[in-house]
């Protein structure tokens, strides 16, 4: 459950970052169109919203919410450190995270 939440949170934050001109340029070397930017933004918020349920299911509301915020911190810290040094790796980790997300939930 921890890993599911972390993976989805990472993917969501990545989409949110890519919706911003500066980080989109870091990864793709061009600015996003207004439409792309808006879509990425929506996808990002959706990802953040979807990363909350695993934490709450795993820990309950009282512990789940602080845990979720802590996981957001870890995922965002990974992005902040990856963008200046390895922007392509930050991008590639996104689909990997999404692929991994269901497994911890399935394993319990």
């Amino acid at each position, binding site marked *: 459950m921890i890993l599911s939440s972390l993976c989805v949170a990472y993917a969501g934050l990545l989409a*949110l970052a890519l919706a911003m001109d500066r980080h989109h340029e870091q990864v793709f070397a061009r600015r996003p169109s207004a439409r792309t930017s808006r879509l990425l933004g929506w996808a990002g918020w959706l990802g953040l919203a979807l990363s909350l349920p695993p934490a709450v299911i795993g820990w*309950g509301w*009282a512990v789940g919410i*602080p*845990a979720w*915020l*802590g996981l957001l*911190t870890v995922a965002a810290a990974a992005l902040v*450190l990856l*963008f200046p040094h390895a922007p392509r790796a930050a991008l590639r980790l996104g689909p990997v995270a999404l692929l991994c997300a269901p497994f911890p939930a399935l394993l319990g």
Partner: protein
Amino acid sequence: MKDGFRQSMAWLHTWSGLLLGWLLFAVFLTGTIAYFRQEVTVWMQPELHGSIPDAGTAERAVERMGQLAPDAAQWTITLPGERSPAVSVSWRPVDAKPNDRAALKRATLDAGTGAVLEPRDTAGGNFLYRFHFELYGMPREVARWIVGIATMAMLVAIVSGIITHRRIFKDFFTFRPEKSALRSWMDGHVAAAVLALPFHLMITYSGLLLFMTMLMPWAVDLAYDGNRQAYFAESGFRRAPPPPRPAPQVAPLTPVAPLLAEADRRWAGRGGVGSLTVTNPGRANATIELRPAESDSIGRGAATERLLFDGVTGRTLEAPPAEPQPAAMATGNYLMGLHLARFAGTGMRWLFFISGVAGTVMVGSGLILWVVKRRSQRGRADTWADGPEPFGHRLADRLNIGVVAGLPLAVAAYFWANRLLPAGLEERAGWEIGVFFLTWAAALLHAPLRPSRRGWAEQLWAGAALFALLPMLNLATAAGHLGNSLPAGNWLLAGFDLTALAVGLLLGFAARKVGRNVFARKAAPASALPAGAVVEELT
């Protein structure tokens, strides 16, 4: 005065942050380690490393207590768990007063054999935990006031910081290590602050709440007419009623295994039984009370739930459910519970630890930024090196070295002292703490004697070496080294060694950066900085 409010917030942020910043750095650093204080204590007691719990540990401990203290009024047995491998026991002699903690006798038992262990005298992780809110060697109340005031300054710095750096949510993911020193320190400071912002707000505000009755006693004094004991009693911090006197008739204690099984059934998935309290053991009116190892809610410790059995027949006497709390108290307890993190399992503890590291980095980088910014404004490209500068700037820089680089060094020295001081030394725990403060004092004295960059590099390298070599020291002085702990899957011990290694590598990385002075080579001269953009944001 278009920017008047933001300017004044920036001023407030700078000075509330700087003046108590060195103290706050120490509070954040030691408080962050305190999330693992039990793990630290176990590492610092190598005598416990061979204790391996099994299914029979609880019964074995009860049996051993029958030999150690057959005539005691009460036994308390704390079972091993994820965070400690041995059994802690305490007992109260019949003639001692019920609430007299000093009369309690204590011992540590090997979980696998029941043998009494003699761990070395150490304050362990508790010293760092206590230091983060009570400092050391001064009256507790005074120290708590000092830390309370610093915590208030922290809250002011956080709120004014959010207003000052208004772009933080737009620049959420931005970190530009390749840019000017000023720019990258700024990014680092803001990233550490904003990434864990909910944590920073929670930990600071709840830290104040924990001091609530000390910092703001007036509401309680008014409502209870100055009788604080009455307030504590009513808020549920009441002391347990004195246990009944031992009955004169002797009766054997019921086997505990069925009671434990009953508790495991009721508290499934909660780590089982954490502790047993046996009152009047061996007497006709004996009772056995079980408490869960973990609480599944934050606001109340595991303590409020319990199972009480007749100690002779094994019949269940009561299993009171936890009482509901009023909403205001539940909210307060929830926030304070988050701060203390007693509810947290290892995964949660790591999340808190990482956020605590972010907080430590936030305070440390803020302190460094104060100096870097003033050097940039004077047109200095090399922000590490010495030069003619006002006394105040030099003082701040040297204090930064002695605290930001010197304190990790002192913590590492504390761990080294734990293994190098003879195990049987008189007042041993005090000596370990003495080594901590001597090392820190040496770092504070060393800083003004050296050129700035050399001072930084030397202290960072020393800290890096001491931390990175801790696993080797453990290998040389204890059985619980990585060669044993990793194959056995003993993450309690392996976690300490691996974390120490990681901290050593990080400090080494920082030392190399300072030593090589990458910042200076790439930094643009201050005159070429887009002064409007950068300096405006920083003032």
